């Protein structure tokens, strides 16, 4: 028995070691790729005058789709902010997804809405649309409000697609703070790529503790609370390193649900957002990609490193846990629905690289970690641990994790430098040391919970409570959440 345990420990150590090495190598490759992509983007775009696209009649037309559910506290300000974006040819479609509060009434009164005889072309299935409204005031002519039965975020977006009149769809969370030049930057790849661009996404940043006035971000600050601060680090790492590298490889599987610009014709062809998943943002991109492969059409999904959208991150651990639980379920659902892509050469980068990567290193990694830690504890209890070697292996993972976060902060410093105060950067660097100990284990637990909930058939969004940028706003979501 003793011998078996020793052999098992060696096997266990080696397995964890080689898996960790594989993950680390993938991160190193992604870091290099993203450095190349960022550098190329920054160099190329330093010569761009976005004003030309702003005023041009040749600029692509954009429909902004923003589902709203029980947003009465902030809806007026959110719409005002969307109507003041810097772009020529766009419309704003707010989809009231059967709110139970006075969201619709507030919009109706403030924007002087009236019902129009809109004949909806139900190209994509969605719950019944009760009415389409336009403002009587010419200054709000860009605004359209859709009032529909509650059906969740995906359903609301699908209803918006059915009503939209423009060529590109900017799907956003209504409570996000959108940078004024966001559409200009997101639309540009559609005009400059050799192949058809089917989706573009930009960097989403954390707005906790930032100063917001009239729906606009006026001062960037590091979150005072530790949990959102860890998320700042996490977002910088994910967006500036991960997604930029995938963009370089043309293997992006996800455009953030908070903000993404899509080619409407392709979205309609694939049937719009899927109602049956909580990871609708990832699922849509995967479905669009596989459609393009099946049609033998060359295409690109592009990510740009500009910070275009600011969102409030959960500061409460239970809410954060629910969000991460949902993300895991969303990933699992997408991977399961599209399981035939796994190492399928017909789907090029999608089948041979992106899907397997997500399977092994995004979905499977927390499971490996969880099992690893559990077995480690078990072996420790049984007295079968070489503590010195174990400590070295743990130190290796810890040091690598700190280095990775440090490189992410370095990327941020060399590019957009959103945190101008030295103290903020110091706090971020400090967070890089604490994150693997305090925050990361929680994300593993939440991911495990997500997997277990999925296996048990749980399929709801979970309640999300937001503080709001101006005042305390409780936004209990039933189906629509962000």
């Amino acid at each position: 028995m003793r011998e078996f345990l020793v052999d098992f420990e060696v096997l266990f150590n080696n397995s964890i070691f080689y898996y960790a090495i594989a993950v680390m190598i993938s991160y190193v490759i992604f870091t290099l790729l993203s450095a190349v992509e960022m550098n190329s983007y920054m160099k190329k775009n330093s010569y761009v005058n976005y004003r030309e696209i702003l005023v041009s009649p040749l600029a692509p037309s954009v429909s902004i789709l923003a589902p709203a559910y029980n947003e009465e506290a902030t809806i007026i300000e959110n719409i005002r902010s969307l109507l003041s974006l810097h772009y020529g040819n766009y419309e704003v479609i707010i989809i009231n997804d059967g709110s139970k509060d006075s969201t619709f009434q507030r919009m109706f009164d403030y924007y002087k809405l009236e019902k129009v005889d809109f004949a909806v072309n139900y190209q994509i299935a969605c719950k019944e649309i009760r009415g389409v409204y336009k403002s009587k005031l010419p200054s709000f002519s860009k605004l359209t409000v859709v009032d529909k039965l509650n059906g969740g975020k995906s359903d609301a977006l699908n209803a918006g697609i059915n009503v939209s009149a423009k060529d590109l769809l900017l799907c956003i969370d209504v409570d996000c703070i959108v940078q004024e030049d966001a559409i200009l930057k997101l639309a540009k790849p559609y005009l400059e790529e050799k192949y058809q661009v089917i989706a573009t996404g930009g960097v989403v940043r954390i707005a906790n503790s930032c100063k917001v006035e009239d729906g606009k971000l006026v001062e960037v600050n590091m979150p005072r609370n530790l949990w959102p601060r860890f998320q700042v680090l996490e977002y910088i790492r994910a967006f500036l390193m991960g997604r930029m590298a995938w963009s370089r490889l043309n293997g992006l599987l996800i455009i953030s649900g908070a903000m993404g610009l899509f080619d409407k014709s392709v979205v309609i062809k694939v049937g719009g957002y899927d109602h049956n998943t909580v990871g609708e943002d990832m699922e849509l991109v995967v479905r669009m990609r596989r459609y393009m492969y099946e049609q033998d059409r060359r295409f690109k999904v592009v990510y740009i490193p500009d910070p275009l959208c600011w969102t409030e991150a959960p500061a409460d651990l239970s809410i954060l846990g629910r969000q991460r639980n949902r993300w895991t379920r969303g990933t699992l659902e997408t991977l399961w629905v599209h399981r035939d892509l796994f190492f399928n050469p017909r789907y090029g980068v999608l089948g041979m690289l992106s899907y397997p990567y997500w399977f092994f290193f995004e979905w499977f990694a927390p499971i490996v970690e969880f099992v690893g830690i559990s077995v480690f504890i078990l072996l420790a209890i049984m007295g079968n641990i070489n503590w010195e070697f174990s400590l070295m292996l743990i130190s290796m993972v810890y040091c690598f994790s700190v280095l990775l976060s440090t490189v992410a902060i370095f990327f941020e410093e060399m590019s957009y430098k959103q945190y101008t105060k030295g103290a903020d950067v110091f706090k971020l660097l400090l967070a890089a040391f604490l994150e693997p100990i305090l925050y990361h284990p929680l994300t593993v637990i939440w991911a495990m919970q997500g997997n277990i909930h999925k296996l048990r058939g749980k399929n709801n969004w979970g309640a999300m409570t937001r503080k709001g940028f101006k005042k305390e706003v409780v936004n209990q979501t039933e189906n629509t959440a962000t």
Partner: protein
Amino acid sequence: MSIFDNIFHYIGQLYTDRLPYFPTNIRASLMIILFCVIAAIEIYIYILFKRIVKMREEKQIKYWKEHIGNVLANIIVYDETDNTAEIISHFYPRFKKIPLGNKIVNQIVVNEILLYRKNFTGKTAEVLSQLYRKLNLDKKTRKKIANRNWDIKIEGIREANEMEIVELASAIIKYTDDENALLRMEAQAAYIKLSAREPFHFLDRARERILDWHQVVLFEIITKNKKLTIPSFSKWLYSPNDTVVMLCLKLIEHFTQFDAEEELKRLLRHHNPKIVKKSVEIIGKLELANAESFMFEIYFDQSEEIKLEILNAFGRISSGQYADFLSSRIYSTDIKIKKEALYAIKRDPDNGKNKLREIYNQTTPENQALIKHVLDDRIKQE
């Protein structure tokens, strides 16, 4: 020994005496740890160093920007003489005192002169152009254009463009068909402005694609430049380069060049559907009634997108010749086609709305809903 001494001693031993005796994975781990620690420390130092340098640079830039801005502002308000040479000789010594040998300061001078030059015309613009030359900045611009790096070349081309250094047009033309898309676009944009005789010569030799983005930029430059003599763009509609054809179609539309009618009819049979669609759109906008029969001929072989555009064009032309055809389209199975046909009928300035009301009384409930939609002027046409 203190606890720290013990730790250092232990780590020292790990990496020296004990290292060869560890299993491979442990040795690799130790190496990775060492690499991570060194790399992280280097990054911290670099971030700190970069921040300090940047702070100093920003201070320097702020100081020189203000100083140079003041001198240039003085040129603008200087009213003791109208003679350009006198003004330059008055201000030249002040510029000579500026350390132009310093790269950062030199670039600030260039940028500030470009900025002022862009915002002023007449005497001030003339003075700034001559001052630019007197300070030998035009020679640096020429050098930049000849540089090996594409980004420096672009910088030079932009400077030549802003300062209107026309003699550099010949140096720029060769880049108008460069492999690098950004360089190509900058060169094309500059060439239009700098070439007095043949600003559109680059279209004759363009083999590389003019990306949609570049078309936006060129379109803006061409349509906003009042000094340009606008040629008939139909002569480039024979170009083998589809992107040249697209750009010219957009310009034909903007400048309402009716002489392109025959070429537009020919393009209805072009292999590129984007060109066909654009041609149809222009035929509609220019209300070329003679082209209606050509559009009708191709209608049934086209994609939905082009069919919609053709229906739209029939509506814009509203000659009445295809009124029955439009009416028949409202019984199509495609809602988009129905809607577009209804909009086309509505466009008839004489009788459109009444015609729709007539159809309303005789058609299906689905079509009635569509007619109500089309007649509601608060809803913009897709």
